[in-house]
Every structure is written in structure tokens, then in C-alpha cells.
């Protein structure tokens, strides 16, 4: 068993592969948070007056709020005045095509395995690449436009589709929602905008890759996906950051709107820099993600694989407003060294015959703490609502923690809610069985963890599932005992 501990430790110490830094000249606003800075960001993005007003309202509200203290996290004090809220690679004008994008940027995304150029055609995934505070390029826009799909950066959407942005921005996550959502609403920079017209199945997977590069900055992206009646889209999200000793803040907001019979599948492989083995550095990942099944028979599915970030505070949720609407949440969260994660979901059943399913797998190693926090709420009118929740935790090592906080609130006698949770370690008997079949210890551990996470991985699009599996193996190398 000791041999396994050492092996896994060695495996985990493997360097964070996305931890490089791209030396590129950047344009950034001064550090600090005030009305002038917000006006400066808005001006840089050439935004309309109404959006600046909205930002300022959010800022004024944020000033009245205090940060959340209820999560099972040791949250260090963040000096919001020391952060640069906007940083972008220096360039004359926004490139009109990928050919005009700074080769250094393309090289960066190539190194990260994100195909923006010719390889993108082979991968068949449309990508929006966000570098610090701006989108540097979006692929397949023309092909998508032929199908009526809008896939562009948020800034472009504000300029080209202001009516859609104005109608839906903040309609799922209002700026009053929580501390970090208010902050994001005040200072958000870029992100992705997706609009799928009625009865349209998006012809390809859409993907956004977020990269934090500049020092002393935060990333505050905003993503908005609107699926009109009868439409369908699968959206993938990935993220990385350089290895630094300082912590950096990532406070994003994602809003999904699914109308009648629309389907949105949102997958995330989160690989922000988690900090070193002593807990130094890493990204604070404080994200508000929420989907609104606004009309009947809508369906929203969240799948997340969380391996990065020093601290994760994230609860992708579904508001099941339409009758027969369905929400799903599949999650694998792995923490190691000094990482902390408090993550889970909220399923709010408002419509009749709504269903939700939650499968959460937490893996804790090193000195980390990993918490599942979930809410299933059945409102009085949500007749025949149905929820099934399963959250399992795997402990690897004696100094980590795995916690489960499921809130269940039912106000309808016809609802059926089931919740199950287990916590256990990687069993010696399981390892012994695998080894007696000829697997070495490393592969045995990988196989057990893979089996533990299988229910979630099968929900990911294939390319992401392969990436997620590899990422998990790398993150776990050296941790199991």
C-alpha cells in the first residue's frame, strides 16, 4: 500500500502541463475597482449606454454585499483593488479572421491542444478562444451562420445582436444574485454568445477555451446560450492558466435559456492552475452557472470535470420552470495537495412532472477538502416532480476531507426525491484483485478511479471524455493509497 501512496504522489507531482506563460505585450486597465474603471472597460468594448448603466447598477449593488462565508472553504481575503479587471493582447484592431491573429496567440492555443487553425477542420468543433479579457478568434462562424446559429464573442454579440443580449442578459442570473455574480456583472470582459434558432440542431459541437495569461489580472467572462424552441446544442468549455505563486481570480457567470423542447448540453473540463504542492498560487474559481428550462419539455444537462483551481466555488443549477422539463448534473471533482472545492448543483422544480438527476463523484487526495453541496427544491405547484441524487466520495490518503451537504426541500406531496451518498477509500481488496490480474499498481488505481467516474465520463462528448480521463490520471498520479 505504501508503494501505491508513493507512486500516486509521484504521479501527482508531475508538473501542470498548461502552466507556461506567453510573453506577449498586453494592454490593461489600471488596477482597482471603481466607476471609472468600469466606464473604461465599457468604453474599450465600445458598449452602448444601457450596458454601462447595467454594469454600474451591479457595481453599486456589489458594494452593499459581503462575500459568502457558508461554504466549507477557507477563503482568504481578496484585495479587489489590486486586480486589473481588463487585460488584452495588444493589437491594432480586432482581427477579421484567424489569419490576422497574432501567431504567438495561435501558438499558445496550439500548445494547449486547442485547434484554432487548419486542425480545427479535422476536429470538427467550433472554438471561441478567450485570452485574458478578450476573445481572440472564433472558428466556423460562417458555416454556423449558414445554419442560422450565432456563435461569437460576447463583445461581438453586444454590437451585432444587442436586442438579444438586452433581452436575456441577467435574466437567469441577475446581478443581485450573489457576491461574485454582482462583481462579474460590473466588470465582465468577454465570453461566448450562442443563439440557436427554432427547430435547429447545431451542426457541430461548440467550444470555448479560456486562458488566463497576464499577471495580477482576473478573468470575468460571461457566457450566454439561448436555445429557441425545438433547438439543440452541445457546448464544451475548457480552461487553463500559467503557474504562478500569486493567486488569481476567475469569477464567471454562465446563463442558459432553453425554450420549449430545446436541449442544451454544457460540458466543462476545468483545469485552472491548482497551485503547487504547498498550496501556493492557483486560481480562485468562483463561478455562477445556471440554466433556465423556461418552457415545457426543455432539457439542460451540466457535465463537469473539475481537476484544477486552488479554490472552487461553483454550483451549476437548473430552474425547471416548464412542465416536463428536465435537469441533469454529472460531476467529477478531484482535489489534491491543498486544493479546496465546494461544488454541487441546485435543481429547482417549479413546473409539473419535472425531473432531475444528480450524479456527483468527489475524489480527495493530499491535504485537500472536497465538498458536495446540493439543493433539490420542489415547489408547491410542482406536481409529480422526481429527483434522484447520488453522490459518492473517494478518499485517497489520511489527511484529506470529503464532505456532503445535500439540502432537500419538498413542498409537494406528489414529489418523489431520493438521495444517496457514500464515502469510502480505494479498497485494498480492489487493488489486490486488479493486481492479481496482472495490472501494475498505477494502472489498477487508474482503473478503479475510472470505474468510479464512469457514469460521468459517459456523458461527455468523446474528445472531452478522453481528455478528462487523461487529466484525471495525471492529477491522480501518486495520490492513491
Amino acid at each position, binding site marked *: 500500500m505504501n508503494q501505491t501512496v508513493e507512486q500516486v504522489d509521484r504521479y501527482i507531482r508531475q508538473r501542470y502541463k498548461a502552466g507556461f506563460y506567453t510573453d506577449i505585450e498586453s494592454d490593461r486597465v489600471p488596477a482597482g475597482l471603481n466607476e471609472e474603471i468600469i466606464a473604461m472597460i465599457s468604453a474599450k468594448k465600445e458598449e452602448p449606454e444601457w450596458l454601462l448603466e447595467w454594469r454600474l447598477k451591479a457595481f453599486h449593488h456589489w458594494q452593499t454585499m459581503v462575500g459568502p462565508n*457558508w461554504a*466549507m472553504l477557507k477563503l482568504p481575503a481578496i484585495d479587489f483593488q489590486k486586480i486589473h479587471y481588463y487585460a488584452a493582447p495588444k493589437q491594432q484592431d480586432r482581427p477579421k479572421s484567424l489569419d490576422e491573429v497574432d501567431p504567438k496567440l495561435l501558438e499558445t492555443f496550439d500548445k494547449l491542444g486547442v485547434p484554432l487553425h487548419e486542425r480545427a477542420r479535422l476536429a470538427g468543433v467550433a472554438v471561441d478562444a478567450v485570452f485574458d479579457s478578450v476573445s481572440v478568434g472564433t472558428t466556423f462562424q460562417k458555416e454556423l451562420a449558414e445554419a442560422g446559429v450565432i456563435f461569437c464573442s460576447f463583445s461581438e454579440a453586444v454590437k451585432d445582436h444587442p436586442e438579444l443580449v438586452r433581452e436575456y442578459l441577467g435574466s437567469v442570473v441577475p446581478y443581485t444574485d450573489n457576491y461574485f455574480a454582482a462583481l462579474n456583472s460590473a466588470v465582465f470582459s468577454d465570453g461566448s454568445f450562442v443563439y440557436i434558432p427554432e427547430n435547429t440542431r447545431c451542426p457541430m459541437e461548440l467550444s470555448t477555451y479560456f486562458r488566463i495569461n497576464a499577471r495580477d489580472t482576473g478573468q470575468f467572462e460571461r457566457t450566454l446560450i439561448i436555445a429557441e424552441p425545438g433547438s439543440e446544442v452541445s457546448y464544451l468549455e475548457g480552461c487553463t492558466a500559467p503557474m504562478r505563486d500569486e493567486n488569481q481570480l476567475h469569477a464567471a457567470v454562465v446563463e442558459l435559456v432553453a425554450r420549449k423542447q430545446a436541449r442544451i448540453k454544457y460540458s466543462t473540463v476545468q483545469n485552472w492552475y491548482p497551485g503547487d504542492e504547498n498550496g501556493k498560487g492557483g486560481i480562485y474559481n468562483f463561478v455562477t452557472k445556471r440554466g433556465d428550462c423556461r418552457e415545457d419539455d426543455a432539457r439542460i444537462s451540466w457535465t463537469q470535470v473539475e481537476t484544477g483551481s486552488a479554490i472552487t466555488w461553483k454550483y451549476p443549477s437548473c430552474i425547471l420552470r416548464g412542465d416536463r422539463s428536465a435537469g441533469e448534473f454529472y460531476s467529477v471533482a478531484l482535489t489534491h495537495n491543498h486544493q479546496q472545492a465546494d461544488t454541487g448543483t441546485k435543481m429547482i422544480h417549479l413546473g409539473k412532472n419535472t425531473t432531475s438527476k444528480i450524479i456527483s463523484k468527489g475524489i480527495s487526495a493530499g491535504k485537500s477538502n472536497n465538498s458536495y453541496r446540493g439543493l433539490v427544491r*420542489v415547489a*408547491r405547484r410542482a406536481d409529480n416532480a422526481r429527483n434522484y441524487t447520488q453522490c459518492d*466520495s473517494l*478518499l*485517497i*490518503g*489520511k*489527511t*484529506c*476531507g*470529503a*464532505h*456532503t*451537504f*445535500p*439540502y*432537500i*426541500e*419538498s*413542498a*409537494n*406531496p*406528489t*414529489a*418523489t*426525491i*431520493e*438521495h*444517496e*451518498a*457514500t*464515502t*469510502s*477509500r480505494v479498497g485494498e481488496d480492489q487493488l489486490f484483485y486488479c493486481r492479481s490480474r496482472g495490472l501494475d499498481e498505477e494502472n489498477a488505481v487508474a482503473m478503479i478511479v475510472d470505474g468510479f467516474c464512469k457514469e460521468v465520463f459517459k456523458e461527455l462528448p468523446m474528445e472531452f471524455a478522453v481528455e478528462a480521463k487523461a487529466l484525471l490520471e495525471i492529477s491522480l498520479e501518486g495520490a492513491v493509497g
Partner: protein
Amino acid sequence: MSVLAENLLSDAVLADSYGAVRKRAQAELMRHGFPDIKTEAWKYTSLRALEKRSLVPGEHQPASPPPVPFDHHLLHIDAGRLLSDSSSLPSGISIEPVDSNRLAGLDYGNRGGAFGWLNLARFEQGLKVVINGRLDQPLMLALTTPDGHADACHPRIEIELTAGSRACLVQLDSSNGSGLVNAVIDLKVGENARLDHALSRHNGDAIWIERLDVALAAGADYRLVTLDGGGRLTRQDINVALNASGARCEVDGSVLIGARQHVDFHTAIDHCVGGTNSRERFRMLADGNGVGVFNGRIHIHPGADDSHSDLNTGNLLLSEQARINTKPELEIHAEEVTASHGATVGQLDEQALFYLRSRGLSAEAAANLLKTGFAAAPLETAVDDAVRQWLLANLGDWL
């Protein structure tokens, strides 16, 4: 000062040998304040009903101890004061005042533990009961208030089982008044001792807040079976600390909540060291516009390897207006453990109802049979036959 502090506290600290303890408790309470729904441990339980009560002191005839259909030794505490004749107790049971030094070391934390501090500041008569040896009959602890009682009382009882002792404790909480009962009960189960504890409570309009703290030594065994028949506002905290290897506990409960009633059970089982076991099963039935709250926490501390724990909570909503809020929590800081919990919220099974009705039962009888079956399961674990039958009879009466 909050409404509650104005109603429940007095500038004058009670003048007795516990003066310093009371003064500190009152200062802590003033510092933290009373909980509100922003306090996590009181998220689903509002104290508005208590705020609106006018607590009026008055002279009342003490209540009689409720009758029970089995032989027992009696400790009857009415409005916080011992009424029964302690000289009739067997030699294995002794009674003494609670030790002020021990009270001085107590810590009820912040706002979530406000009623613990309040009890410490205002308790009427602190009693310590020591049980030594094996009791031949159950010890009945009857906590009552006089009829018409509309004041606040703060019973405080410590019960200690010495090493190797064994006892059955039957606790009966009842009040026909409209005041506040704010009880604190400390149980200490010594090495290899065993305590079977049955708690039965049925309240009308009274507000009943009770905190039960249980500390288990090595090899100690604690079994609690509780039946709560509901009340206008009931809050029960059960905290069990498994302090040494070999300690184990089982906590079972059924809670019946009717119209205009609110019952909140918060349980916490702390596996402080390894080699400890716990099992917990709670069932709630909410009818009318009643609200049931259950929060069950299992905490396995760092280093408490080889701890095993299972928690299960099942809930039935019996009407359109009823509500259930339930939260089974796991907090695990050790590796070689198994911990699990399950929670369900649902309604009476229509197929089972149909089956029973097809056998000639009326709709009401069929529903009652199913409700009884659901609520009786946790009570079946009571070890003493007579106590078990008594609990099941109470269940039948209260359903």
C-alpha cells in the same frame, strides 16, 4: 436588544452558587444574540412564534407525572424543579447538584447555540443523576410544566452512567401550557456502560427547545429511540460524541407533524476517534400545513480511521400544504472509513393503498396502516419490551 433577549433575559443575574457561570452565559448570549433564519442551524426554523408569545409568570399547580404502563423509578421535574421524592430511588441512583466547575467549562458556541447559553444563564435547578450498576427497572425522567404554564422554564439535568453500568432511561416530555421549555440534558456513558434511552414527547401549544448532549467513553453503547408527536414549535438537538474506541450509538426516531406544527430535529454524531460505529434512522410524517425539518450530521474527525457510520432519513408528505426540509450531512476527515447516508421524500404508495382497499379496508384505515408501518420501524428497535409496546401504543394514539 432583540425581542427575544427582552423577553427571555433579565438584567438581574440569578443569585445562587452558580452566579459566575450564569453571568458568563448571559454575556455570551448578549454577544452572539439569538438565531434567525440566516443562521445555518436555524435556516428552516423561525422563532417568530416565540417572539410573539407573552411569557407570563404565574402560580400554578404542579403537573402530575404522566402514567406509564410499566414499573419504573421516577424522576419528575416540573418547570425545571425536581418534584418526585428522591429518597425512594434505589441505591444505584444518586442525585446531587450539578458541579459549577463543569458548567464553567461549557461552550455552546455562537448564535446557533443561543438556547444552550440561555439555559445556563437561567436554569432553575441543576440536577446531576449518577447511575451505578445495573438498574432493575427503567428510570423515568418526566419533564413537565404545570397546567396553564405560560412562562419560560429551563430544566437542566446531567445523567452519568459509571463504567460497566446499564440502564434504561425513559424520558417523557409533556406540556399543556403555552410557555417555553428550554431544556438541556447531558448524558455521560462510562466505559463499557450501556444506556437505552427512549424519548417520547407530545406537545400542544408549548414551545419546546431541547438540547441533548451525549458523551460516550470506550466501549460505551448508547441507543436512543425517540417518538415525537409534534407541537406548535419543537426544536430538538441531539449531539453524540463517540470519544473513545469501541463506542457505538444508534439513534432512531419517528416524528409526527400535524397542522400548524413545526418540528425541527438536528442531530450530530461525532466520531472523534477511530474504532467507533454509529447508525441513525429518522422518519418524519407531515400532515396539514405542518413543517418537518431534519438535519443529520455525521462528522468523522481526522485520525478517526476504522469508523463506520450510516444515516437514513425517510419522509412522507401527507397533505398538499405540508413541507419537509431535510439535510443529511457527511463531514469526513479520515481515510479508512465507511460512511453513507440516504434520504427520501415521498407520499403514501398508491399501489399499496389500492392493495389494502381491495382487501376491504377503508381509505382511512388503509392510509393509517401504511403510516403506522412507516413510523413504527424506528420504534421497533427499543430494547425493553414494555417500553417498545408503550411507544407503539403512543404512536397509534397520536397518528
